[in-house]
C-alpha cells in the first residue's frame, strides 16, 4: 500500500508528467486559457489514461505471449484512439452540456502524448496490473494538477501588459518554465523514507 502511495505521489509531484517529463505539452499549452476548460480536459484525460493503462497492460501480455511485441506502438495507439471515440460517444449521449464544453478537445486526447507515454512507461517499468492502473490514474491527476495551476496563472496573465513579441506562446512557455521550477522543489522529497520502506 505504501509503495503504491510512493508511486502515486512520485508521478503527481516529483516527476510531474507535464512539468518534469514533458508529456502532454500540446494540450497543456492549448487548453489552458481558462480554469474551467482546463478542469474538463483534465478529468477527461484522467479517465482515458486510467482505462488505457488497464487495457494496454493486457494487450502487452497478449503481444508478448504471441511474440509480436514489435506491434506495441500500433496496438497501443489504436486502442487509445478507439477508447477516445467511445468516451466521446458516451459523453455526447449522457451529458450534452459537457460535450459542448469539451467539444474539440476530446479527439485531441488521442494525440496527447501523455496517454501513450504513460502506457509505454508502465511496460518499461515492468509494473504489475495494479501498479499500472495506479500510475495511469496518478498520471491523469498529475496532468490535471499542472493544467489547472497553469490555467489559473494564465487567467491572471490576461491582465498584465505583455510585450508584443512575447504575447501568446512565448510568455506561456516562460510561465510554464517558472511553474516547472517551482515543482523542482519536490525533487528533494525522499518518499521512500517518508513512508518507511
Amino acid at each position, binding site marked *: 500500500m505504501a509503495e503504491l502511495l510512493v508511486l502515486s505521489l512520485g508521478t503527481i509531484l516529483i516527476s510531474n508528467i507535464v*512539468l*518534469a*517529463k*514533458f*508529456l*502532454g*505539452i*500540446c494540450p497543456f*499549452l492549448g487548453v489552458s486559457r481558462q480554469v474551467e476548460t482546463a478542469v474538463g480536459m483534465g478529468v477527461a484525460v484522467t479517465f482515458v489514461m486510467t482505462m488505457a493503462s488497464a487495457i494496454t497492460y493486457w494487450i502487452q501480455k497478449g503481444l508478448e505471449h504471441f511474440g509480436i511485441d*514489435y*506491434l*506495441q*506502438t*500500433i496496438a497501443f*495507439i*489504436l486502442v487509445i*484512439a478507439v477508447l477516445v471515440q467511445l468516451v466521446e460517444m458516451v459523453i455526447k449521449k449522457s451529458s450534452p452540456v459537457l460535450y459542448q464544453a469539451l467539444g474539440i478537445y476530446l479527439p485531441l486526447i*488521442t*494525440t*496527447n*502524448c501523455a496517454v*501513450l*507515454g504513460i502506457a*509505454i*512507461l508502465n511496460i*518499461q517499468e515492468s509494473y504489475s496490473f495494479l501498479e499500472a492502473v495506479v500510475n495511469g490514474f496518478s498520471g491523469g491527476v498529475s496532468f490535471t494538477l499542472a493544467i489547472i495551476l497553469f490555467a489559473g496563472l494564465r487567467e491572471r496573465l490576461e491582465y498584465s501588459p505583455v510585450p*508584443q*513579441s*512575447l504575447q501568446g*506562446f*512565448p*510568455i*506561456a*512557455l*516562460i510561465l*510554464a*518554465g*517558472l511553474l*516547472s*521550477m517551482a515543482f*523542482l522543489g519536490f525533487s528533494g522529497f525522499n518518499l521512500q523514507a517518508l513512508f518507511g520502506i
Partner: protein
Amino acid sequence: MNNWSIFKNGVFNENPTFRLVLGMCPTLAVTSAVINGLGMGLAATAVLVGSNLMIALLRKIIPKEVRIPCYIVVIATFVTIVDKVMAANTPDLHEVLGLFIPLIVVNCIILARAEAFASKNSVGSSIVDGLGMGIGFTLALILLSAVRELLGTGTLFVAKDFGFSGFTIFPEALGAKIMIMPPGAFITLGLLLAGINWISRKKEAK
C-alpha cells in the same frame, strides 16, 4: 507551388516548431544535448517522409470516415521501423531518446501534415513537404539544444557514443544546470519564440 517553395515553406514560413507550434513534447524533452536533438529530428523526418509518401499514395483509396485511424496505422508502422532500425544500428542514441521514439507517432506535426497536405497532394509534393517540415523541425531542435547544451554544460555537440567529444567552450562547473533541466527547456523555447516573433515583425514593418 513548386517543390522548392514547398520545401522552403516547411523550413521557414510554416516551421512546425516556431510557427505552427506543433510537436512540443519531444522539442522540450530531448533538446538537452545537440546530438539528441539531431537524432530525434532525423528520426522524425524519416517517419514524416515515409508517412507522407504512403498517405499520398493511398489518398484516393482511403475513405474519409476512417482516414484518421488509417493514417495512425501508417504512421505507427514507420515509427516502429525507425525504432527497430535505430535499436539495431545506433543502440546508444536509441537508449538516450528512449520513450520519445515511439512517441513520434503522436507528434502532432506528422498527423497534421498527413491531414493538411499528403491527403490532398501528389506523392512527389508530399515527399518534399515531409522533407521540408522534417528539416525545419530538426533545425529548430538543433538550435534549441545548442543553446541549452552550451549554457548548461559549456560544451557543444558532445556525442560520446559516436566517439566525438564535442567542443568545450567553457568549463562545465560554470554551466547553468537549470538549462538542461525542465525549466530551462520551457524558458529557452519561450525566449527563442519571442525572438523569432520580434525578427519577423521587424521584417514585416519594412
